[in-house]
């Protein structure tokens, strides 16, 4: 049973503030992913929890007890580094046994535990080898084994599969998830890869320039982004964002993107839901799958011209010219043959997001 809580955590490197008033509660057995670009403070946050960085202000609580003044060794937390950090002069066996030796356990106990962890991770045949003789994936397994063997209160992982190639990364991702379900320990995982975050996390914590942007399940951060940063950071292909002007039409609302001549039709309720924000500077966000395309004219659809088509295998991404803006739509593969085609498009109101341009915050309009 391990809960971790960050309360008003601040961290400075000289004059630069890398963590700004971070508050976060992590429940027992939860798999939390800290997601953000490099330099956003996610690794520093992780290292602060591990005890490898001191914090300027705030509290870090593990099971309700403040630990910010404890040494890393006394926090009973394990960490997997991006570089794996296997001790090169020790065999795999010694590497995994190393954290146990610090606990002064008996030799037979250590041996049993090392072998059982090795069995779980399917690395029993590697125990006698030196780290230099291992492949990237095996190094990663050993690093995880070294973290697991002590049965720590929590596991911290700093981009543990970032150094692997794409195929191996996918395999290891599944393996980490399987292991988490089996072992069930509180895990904090740092990555800049949103696909990794979406596939692994119970909840994703998105950070930008030291500030927490949004905490939520993968589905929440994807379908209800709290601000423009989250909207554009999560999801691939990236969400379309364009300046939008909302006007009232006879029976509906019309949303004009940028300098486009005509607007997309939206339900009239949009006006009331915008709650007076309609006159403000607005931005519309729509994911490519929220842009609907058909070949023949229909009610509510607007004529547009296709530009570039990116075939991505299972689907295509088509650029549509709307005024001087480009709207990217997701279509089934081969639906659009190439640039210059005339098609009809509309924006699915249920998938549209409206943001206040000045603050970047979502206006929480759900149609």
């Amino acid at each position: 049973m391990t809960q971790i809580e960050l309360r008003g955590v601040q961290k400075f490197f000289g004059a630069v503030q890398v963590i700004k008033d971070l508050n976060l509660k992590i429940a027992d057995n939860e798999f939390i992913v800290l997601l953000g670009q490099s330099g956003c403070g996610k690794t520093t946050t992780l290292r602060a929890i591990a005890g490898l960085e001191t914090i300027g202000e705030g509290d870090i609580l593990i099971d309700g007890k403040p630990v910010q003044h404890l040494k890393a060794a006394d926090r009973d937390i394990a960490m997997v580094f991006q570089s794996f950090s296997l001790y090169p002069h020790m065999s795999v066996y010694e590497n995994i046994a190393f954290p146990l030796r610090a606990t002064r356990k008996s030799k037979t106990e250590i041996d049993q535990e090392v072998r059982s962890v090795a069995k779980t991770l399917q690395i029993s045949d590697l125990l006698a080898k030196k780290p230099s003789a291992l492949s990237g994936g095996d190094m990663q397994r050993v690093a995880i084994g070294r973290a697991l063997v002590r049965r720590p209160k929590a596991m911290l992982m700093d981009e543990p599969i970032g150094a692997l190639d794409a195929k191996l990364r996918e395999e290891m991702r599944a393996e980490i998830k399987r292991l988490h379900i089996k072992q069930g320990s509180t895990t904090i995982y740092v990555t800049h890869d949103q696909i990794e975050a979406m596939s692994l996390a119970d909840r994703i914590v998105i950070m930008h320039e030291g500030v927490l942007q949004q905490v939520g399940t993968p589905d929440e951060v994807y379908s209800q982004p709290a601000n423009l940063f989250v909207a554009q950071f999560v999801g691939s292909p990236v969400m379309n964002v364009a300046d939008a002007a909302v006007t009232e039409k006879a029976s509906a609302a019309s949303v004009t993107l940028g300098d486009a001549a005509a607007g997309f039709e939206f339900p009239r309720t949009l006006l009331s839901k915008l709650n007076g924000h309609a006159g403000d500077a607005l931005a519309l966000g729509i994911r490519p799958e929220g842009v609907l395309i058909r070949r023949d004219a229909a009610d509510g659809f607007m004529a547009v011209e296709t530009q570039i088509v990116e075939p991505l295998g299972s689907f295509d991404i088509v650029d549509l010219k709307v005024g001087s803006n480009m709207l990217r739509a997701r279509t089934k593969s081969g639906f659009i043959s190439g640039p210059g085609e005339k098609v009809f498009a509309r924006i699915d109101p249920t998938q549209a997001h409206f943001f206040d341009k000045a603050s970047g915050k979502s206006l929480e309009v759900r149609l």
Partner: protein
Amino acid sequence: MAAVRTSSEITFNRVAIVAVLLVTIIFLAPIYWIASTAFKPRNLATTIPPTVVFQPEISPFVKLFTKRSQLRSPPSPEEYAAAPWWERVVFDGGEKIVRDGKGQVQWSGYPSRFLNSLIIAITSTVLAVGMGTFTAYGFSRFKVKGEADLLFFILSTRMLPPVVVAIPMFLMYRAVGLNDSHIGLIILYTAFNLSFSVWLMKGFMDEIPKEYEEAALVDGYTRMEAFFKIVLPEAATGIAATAVFCFITAWNEYAFALIMTNRRAQTAPPFIPSQVGSGLPDWTVIAAGTFLFLLPVAIFTFLLRNHLLRGMSFGAIRK
């Protein structure tokens, strides 16, 4: 596809091999000269042109380790027959081995000087490398105020020829009673080697990824434990290289040893040439002393050769 070597490449390779051989011969020639002279009969040591083929003798070594005096008259046949083989080779050279009242063979000054050299060089190497390693670790891992200035200051002790300070050092040592003492030379050599050791070890420490210690810290070890269990083994290559250099410096040091010591703590370097002056110079004995003096460094370096050649960290960190 197999690489095809052009004729110019082959020629270049051959020239390179010849050049390397030539350089090797030039470098090894003095060693050969010393080693061969150490086994030559005395009358062949100074012939012109040099004698290359000769019957090797052990007599220079016997003479090196014993106290001898000139024979006024040749020994009687009985005396000669009763003498052990190593005494006869001395008789053959017109000398006899000095014995005390009880008939015990008197040793020359060489063994004790050799022992002094070993004690002083090993102790000062251990101290310089040990302190250097700790200092380098501190500079490498922690934020030290004025780090660059401090490191420059440490190096500045090497910016003048050490002999320049020989006289003041001698006066200071005499005032505090450190001259002609083992501890005096040990302090001197340690101080002299320390700056070198700090700089060299700093380079090696910087190469050891910080993540290793951080992993150990998270694994439940203190920083000190992490240093001894993780950093030191990783720094073995650097420590070996630094130790070899410090040892060679301390082992071969001549000027301070000559000025600061005369008997009790005298090392081999000032002792060996001092033998030139007694009677006619016996170059074979000097060569034997020098030859033996070469061996510890050669053995030490040979033992550490794997560490000297091995790469620093071998692929356990992915960068």
